[in-house]
């Protein structure tokens, strides 16, 4: 992956070229080896006035293999990795690139805010002024009302994820923050403040999936496998859901992924979850059945999801500190979990011989969700 951050003067194709070539080099493969490309992107048609990005991005890393752009808001490359895994497991391809790219900072804040909002219902949510932070603020207040918790609980999540990112040189924000910094930051949409929100980032990520037979035949170093994949859906607009404090799309995706991998939540050693806002990490951990409903709000505060806790969450820094170039996030999570399991991530030292990891990626207010289980290959 590229460093996530502000790259307003670099084109999307240049960003994706860097990520794709790095992934191929890491895998010991060349562009000619690639059978198919699945590329996630959310607002490239708005930010770069560029459609038909699949072949453009493939060409950028030297391939003319069949390519698809997949859009699912912030879950775009979670969907890409799911499709990539599907074609490899079905035996339709041996070497597949899954990745994503987003450019956001070439637009001003108003432009980025307006672009991110298109993940919501244009008639019933965007029109009355629901921004992306506002949508999660509506969920956060509903969660507090139903289960309790407060801004300080959420602040501990931000502090944790910032701390995790301090050694991640690909992270957008490598700054240590305190609980007071978070609770005293300017309000974006209450109860969420500036430090409850992920930054607006540019960046690209890519991973290479190969079949077991191909990896074995070509003697590739492939220490981690995707063993479970799941996707869930929900009504698009928040107002049409039974609860604003739960995300059943993630629950459905998780159940499918756990069943697919034949694991249970207790087996998970490390997780990267979609913390676009601090409250989103809480909602994810509960929907993943890693916590009971109403219990994950205090997980970071109690030190359970910190890097020295029993279940480290978002050791990469998460979206919160690593950054959130929307279309690149899902595959960046997969890359982080794979490196954590393989022992090559800068925060891998937080884990003691991990064997099972999980990545959860969500779109909009979780009308789309993907969950992938990764395991160390024995």
């Amino acid at each position, binding site marked *: 992956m590229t460093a996530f951050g502000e790259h307003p003067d670099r084109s999307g194709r240049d960003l994706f070229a860097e990520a794709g070539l790095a992934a191929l080099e890491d895998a010991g493969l060349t562009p000619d080896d690639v059978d198919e490309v699945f590329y996630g992107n959310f607002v490239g048609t708005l930010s770069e006035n560029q459609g038909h990005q699949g072949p453009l991005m493939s060409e950028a890393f030297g391939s003319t293999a069949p390519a698809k752009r997949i859009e699912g808001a912030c879950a775009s490359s979670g969907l890409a990795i799911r499709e990539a895994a599907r074609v490899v497991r079905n035996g339709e391809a041996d070497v597949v690139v899954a990745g994503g790219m987003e450019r956001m900072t070439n637009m001003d804040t108003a432009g980025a*805010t*307006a672009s991110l909002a298109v993940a919501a219902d244009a008639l*019933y949510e965007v029109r*009355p002024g*629901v921004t992306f932070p506002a949508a999660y603020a509506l969920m956060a207040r509903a969660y507090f009302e139903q289960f309790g918790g407060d801004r300080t609980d959420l602040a501990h999540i931000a502090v944790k994820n910032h701390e995790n990112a301090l050694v991640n040189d690909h992270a957008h924000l490598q700054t240590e923050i305190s609980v007071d910094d978070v609770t005293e930051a*300017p*309000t974006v949409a209450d109860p969420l403040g500036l430090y409850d929100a992920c930054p607006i980032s540019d960046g690209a990520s890519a991973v290479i999936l190969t079949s077991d037979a191909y990896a074995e035949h070509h003697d590739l170093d492939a220490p981690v496998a995707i063993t479970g994949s799941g996707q869930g859906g929900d009504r698009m607009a928040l107002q049409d859901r039974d609860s604003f404090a739960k995300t059943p799309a993630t629950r459905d995706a998780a159940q499918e992924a756990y069943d697919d991998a034949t694991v249970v939540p207790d087996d998970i050693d490390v997780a990267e979850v979609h913390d676009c806002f601090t409250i989103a990490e809480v909602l994810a951990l509960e929907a993943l059945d890693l916590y009971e409903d109403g219990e994950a709000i205090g997980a970071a505060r109690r030190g359970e999801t910190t890097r020295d806790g029993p279940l480290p969450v978002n050791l990469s820094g998460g979206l919160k500190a690593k950054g959130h170039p929307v279309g690149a996030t899902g595959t960046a999570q997969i890359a982080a979990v794979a490196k954590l399991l393989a022992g090559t991530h800068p925060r891998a030292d937080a884990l003691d011989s991990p064997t099972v990891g999980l990545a959860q990626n969500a779109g909009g207010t979780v009308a789309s969700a993907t969950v992938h289980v990764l395991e160390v290959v024995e």
Partner: protein
Amino acid sequence: MTDTSDSTFASFLDAIEAGNPFYLTCPNDHGSLPPKRICPECTEQTLSKESLPETGEIVTYTNVAVPAPRFRDDSPYVTAIADFGPITLTGQLQGVDSDDVQIGQTVQLTVGSADGERFVAFERP
């Protein structure tokens, strides 16, 4: 401005403005909002209009400090989700001080407008 025009959504707003708000209902009494051709709960395709209760109750809200660009001159503003019984709606709460909003408060429907686009809004009865 992006065109998101839809004639049935426009008629929904027209009805609010006329003081006769409606929702869609299926033979199994599931409420939904236009435009719909199928009940999202049970997939019944026979949908009819019913009068919407005049007031709803705020179930969650947020005071938006960093506004959507169309509302840059109106920030901070409050968006809320209110339960009207058969359906639940998202709207901008108008004419109310943001410090004076609470879950459980009663609101009624109105229609707001920004940059020439109308939207669902709430006000105190």
